[in-house]
């Protein structure tokens, strides 16, 4: 599974409240979450993350179990999220909604070209290749299916 896009660099410990604030949770309309994604971190971010790869520091997605956080990123058109480490529920949620997550330590510059190959276990930033921590077989299978819902449908 491969993908690429320009990097949007973020810091460490980006919590789920910063990704999507609690005040926007009470809806089933996913476009609301995409519209307000990262609003409390940087209101300008939502407009420039479509087609990009988010590159964060350690402990990406810490805090709440709210799945709206990963759905917001996916609906906003984020191609993948790379981080030095992830909070575990965010990591699992991302896979479950079909948003590729890549655990790797990379040097990030805004706009750098990021490419990744989950099967190959690598990520490249402006041509420089870094190893990515491998996902479990099941997680790769879920991601390949496009998330846990389509994975489920294909197996039952």
């Amino acid at each position, binding site marked *: 599974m491969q993908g690429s896009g320009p990097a949007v660099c973020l810091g460490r*410990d980006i*919590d789920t*409240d*910063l990704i999507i*604030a*609690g*005040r926007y*949770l*009470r*809806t*089933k309309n996913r476009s609301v979450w995409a519209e307000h994604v990262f609003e*409390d971190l940087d209101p300008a971010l939502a407009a420039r993350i479509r087609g990009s790869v988010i590159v964060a520091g*350690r*402990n990406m997605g*810490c*805090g*709440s*179990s*709210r*799945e*709206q956080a*990963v759905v917001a990123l996916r609906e906003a058109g984020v191609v993948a999220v790379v981080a030095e*480490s*992830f*909070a*575990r*529920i965010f990591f*699992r*949620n991302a896979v*479950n*909604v079909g948003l590729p997550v890549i655990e790797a330590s990379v040097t990030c510059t805004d706009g750098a070209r990021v490419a990744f190959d989950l099967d190959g276990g690598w990520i490249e930033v402006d041509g420089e290749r870094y190893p990515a921590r491998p996902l*479990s077989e*099941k997680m790769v299978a879920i991601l390949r299916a496009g*998330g*846990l*819902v389509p994975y*489920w*449908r294909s197996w*039952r």
Partner: protein
Amino acid sequence: MSTLSEAILGAPAGSYVDREVDIAFAHDGTGVLAREALREMGVEHLPHPERLRLVFDHIVPANTGTTATLQAELREYARVSGIELSDAGGGICHQVMSEGVVRPGMVVVGADSHTCTLGALGAFATGVGATDMAAVWASGSTWFRVPETIAVNLTGHLSSPAEPKDVALAYVAELGMEGATYRALEFVGDGAATISMDGRLTLSNMAVETGAKAGMFYADAVTVRHLAEHGVTASPQAPEDCCYERTVAINLDDIVPLVAVPHRVDTVREAEEVAGTHLDQVFVGTCTNGRYEDLARFARIVRGKKVAVRTLVFPASRTVLARAIATGVLADIVDAGCTVGSPGCGPCLGAHMGVLGEGEVCLSTANRNFKNRMGVGGEVYLASPSTAAASALAGEITVPEVA
């Protein structure tokens, strides 16, 4: 020889296992999304509705027509699918589950990050997202990576005015916000036995603030007695003191009142260092500190006095509320000028009933002080119910006196 996580999940750390789940619960927020995912999966029949619970706690009673409608749909789904519902006012999911539902040795998943709270009962309990929860509804099972374990070795005894919340803040500060990511914590040592069940639930609750998957105590006489009070028979578990990745030592004798300052849970100071910080609101409650002992400690300090700042008190469950009424604790709180809300999460996540305004400062007994969490431009300090009581009386952060 194994850790408690390894014993319950039945495999060594690092392995991936599929496990039947004994109890799975979601709340009014995550339950709506789980229901949507289940619909998209095309699942109609739930194989094990008796293992499932829905607990309305996040925005209850509903704050808007939209919220009310979402809750009405989920309430109806609970009825037709046979999922037991704890409706608005019953209490916070983790508290309700701790009152005789979860037992030692169970595998528990909750669609809320603070599900780790239930590790206090000797269960393997961890948070999942809504789609994972839908898959559990559909199959009765889920997959886990068996975590490595960090031991938090407690020695000594807590003495007033320090209390379990201060221990929780101490270990979060020691480990940091990602110090235990993908790992389980086990609270062990002679000091663990001295902590009440309410206190254990507080300690386990904050495990996720270190990134941990679970925060566990071995079931002992305290656990057995707690469950007996809720009509459940349970047996103690035997600690094996084995296989820890590392050990963090905390001497309870050394613990003093602590405060986590904005906007990180792991930036912890002695309450004395931040004493005098002006407050606009004090909030007592949540899955961290809304239990009976918390309310009783708070009430003991405010009894016969008047709070100097807007003070909101939300019992963690109807059971807690009823006990606080029966013992006079609630009357002391009301007489002191506090506003009492219905059992639930209250303003913890900034959705209703106590949201902060721009520039307002709140001292809260909750577990998160992330930027803007309780309202855009608001600041949150986290502390114990005793520190909250002393601070409410003074209108500024104040170190509680020795009881």
